[in-house]
Structure formats: C-alpha cells, structure tokens
C-alpha cells in the first residue's frame, strides 16, 4: 500500500544518497537505501487553495524492491497544520504488473487514511488529475479524468480550520533506490498546472513555484515556468 503522507518539511528534505543513472530505460538501483518519502516536484503555500489540477503523463518507474517501494506521480491539496491531505495520481508497486490510478486522503496525522485504486493506466497516457473542494457538500473530491474516484469523509474547512491548504504537484518514491517515473528520454510531463483560490474564482496558473528534488538521482526541469515541468530518473 502506498502512503503518500507528507508535510512541507518532508517535501523539501535534504537530498539523499545514490547516483545510478538510467538513461532511456528505467532501471532502479540495486540497493534501496533507507526508507523515506523522496519527492520530485513543487508546491505552493501561503494561501488556501480550493482546487489543484494538472495533466500528468504516466510512466512506470522501476523499483528497488524494498518493503513499500513505489513510484508515483500526483496532485494534492494538503493542510499545513494538521498533516491531512487529499490526492490523486498514479503509481506502480512491486509485484504488480501494471500502473494504477489512485486517490487517497487523510483527515489528520492521527487518523487512518483511506485509499482507493482505480483503473490501470497505460504508460505514455496523459490524464488530468484534480482535487476540488465542493462548497456545497463540504468535501474534497479527487478526480481522475472524467471520474470522481473518491471524496473525503470530512470537511477540511472544519477539520483543517485555521490552516491554509497548500497545492502540490509531485513525483514520489519511498526509497532513493526506486526510480522516479520517467527517464531522460521519456520524462513525466506535468502540464496545465492550475489552482483555484476562492469559491467564485476561476482556475488560474499558480505563481511562486520553485522546483525541488530530494535526490540527485532524479531530474526536474521547467518546460514553461509555473505551468508545466518534467520529472525523470537520470
């Protein structure tokens, strides 16, 4: 089971070890290293984001095979103060032959998370992922394309009261030896990145984003600053 719990502090954790290039063909390192979420992406904080979205191309990252190994990419709304989140994306786990779309939420750091795995996604396919707060129901819906896969069981306006909700676009592994989805030849594309910042607001391109990678094994670069970027394993 994946668990993509993260906080701002973990998202900008210091780079880890290893440097095992895999040009063109995904090839995970033979050694996993220490367990811990390793991120490759960006986020924006400071104000509450009621919606976050991007198109993400699917790629199957090779895994080092450790317990909890994973290779994922997703978008997310999360609480700055409570450790809660709602996200959707895709991922690949050891022992599974395919890449699956998923959604997952956590009310706060002391709650159990709820996870749902949707359809198989073919590598190379571009899909829109979106989290959107519904002001009528009080829930965050986690969308994959034209399908709402999962809704939170709590109203973040209450559960995360006093906390801003940040928006995030990330690739994630659980070991530095896992490959981030994408290679230098076929990187993962995050495109049409947008946020919604108020109830009556339109979707807009975010600003103030800075790309960050936790590992020197992983690459990240803007294609168009603030609206599209690539990630890959070097």
């Amino acid at each position, binding site marked *: 089971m994946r*668990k993509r719990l993260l906080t701002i502090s973990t998202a900008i954790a210091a780079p880890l070890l290893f440097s095992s290039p895999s040009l063109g063909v995904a090839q995970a390192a033979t050694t996993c290293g220490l367990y*811990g979420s390793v991120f490759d992406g960006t986020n924006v904080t400071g104000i509450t984001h009621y919606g976050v979205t991007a198109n993400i191309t699917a790629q199957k990252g090779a895994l080092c095979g450790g317990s*909890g190994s994973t290779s994922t990419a997703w978008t997310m709304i999360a609480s700055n103060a409570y450790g809660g989140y709602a996200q959707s994306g895709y991922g690949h*786990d050891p*022992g599974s032959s395919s890449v699956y779309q998923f959604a997952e939420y956590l009310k706060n750091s002391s709650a*159990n*998370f*709820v996870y749902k795995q949707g359809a198989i996604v073919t590598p190379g396919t571009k899909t829109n992922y979106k989290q959107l707060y519904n002001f009528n129901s*009080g*829930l965050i819906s986690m969308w994959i394309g034209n399908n709402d896969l999962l809704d939170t069981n709590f109203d973040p306006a209450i559960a995360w009261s006093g906390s801003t909700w940040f928006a995030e676009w990330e690739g994630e592994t659980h070991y530095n030896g896992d490959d981030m989805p994408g290679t230098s030849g076929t990187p993962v594309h995050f495109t049409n990145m947008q946020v919604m910042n108020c109830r009556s607001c339109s979707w807009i391109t975010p600003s103030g984003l800075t790309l960050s990678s936790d590992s020197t094994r992983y690459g990240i670069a803007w294609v168009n600053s603030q609206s599209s970027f690539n990630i890959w394993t070097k």
Partner: protein
Amino acid sequence: MTKEEQIVRVRNMSLLRGSLAIVLLLALSVSGSVIASAQNRKAPSKLATGTSAPTAADAGVSFVPQSPPAGAAATNAQTQAISVATDSVGAMATAQSVQVSVAYGSFTDSEYTGVLPSGQRAPLYVGRPVWLVTFSGVDLSPTVSGSTSSNHEINVAVDAASGQYLEAYSYQ
C-alpha cells in the same frame, strides 16, 4: 466450519505463490463456501461518518455478501479472482502473515462516478456481482516517520462475470 477455519491463511506467500491456486482450490472444495469478511454497509452521508476510524462508507463502497455460484466453474472463477487481485495490489498481498479471504456478492461504489453529457454523475459500479478478495494483515508502506504501519486490510473487487479487476480500496 467456523469463519476462522474458512480463512485461507497463506504464510510466506512469496514462497508459496506458485501453489496458491492449488491451496485455494483444496480449501474451497472442502468448505464449499466462501468467506464473508467484507463489509455490509450502505454508504451514508460521508460527513456523518467522518471519524478517525474510517469505514467502508468512507471509501464510498458497500458490499452485500450473497451465496456464491456452485460448481467447478465458480471455484475456478474464484481462484482466478484471487490471482487478479494479487496482481493488482502487488507484493504487499504476498508478504508473510497476510491472510486471503474471498466473498461473493453485490458491490456498489457510490463515489466512483463518471459525468454524463447531461452533467449528471453516474456511478460506475452499482449492484455489480463481484468476487471481493480481502488481504488482511497487510503491512502498508511506512510513513514519513520511517515506521511500518502493520495489520491493515486491502479489498479488491473483481467482476464475477468477466473476471476483470474493477477497483481496490483500503480504509483500515
């Protein structure tokens, strides 16, 4: 046969993966029934269930166990469902101490919805006959704290008619 006896325990599944189908066939031929360990709940208002201990309703799903089809074909379908489910969740389903159970019944996911041209939402799965494969005692990926989160449950719904994977979910 008690419920506990019906549970097919597969320890060290990484070593027994190749013989999983045989084990299950033997167990099921003896029991002549399947296990109904899954939830049987309607999905109420989600906000009403917004506690720190999520239920199936918090994943938007409900499952109503039913008597499974009889005969060898059904047994084969059940075995195939386990194989499909195992592949869909990967190595976490084949770790040591993981227990596998299967139930036949009607599956609904009220949240997994598509948007019709009219703008209305339509659930993808309503009253779908499925084999619900449940993996218990699963160690989930450690959190950022670095500790392993153990003894969780993953459910996989496999279409009873086609044998195709539908979805998987976990809430405990």
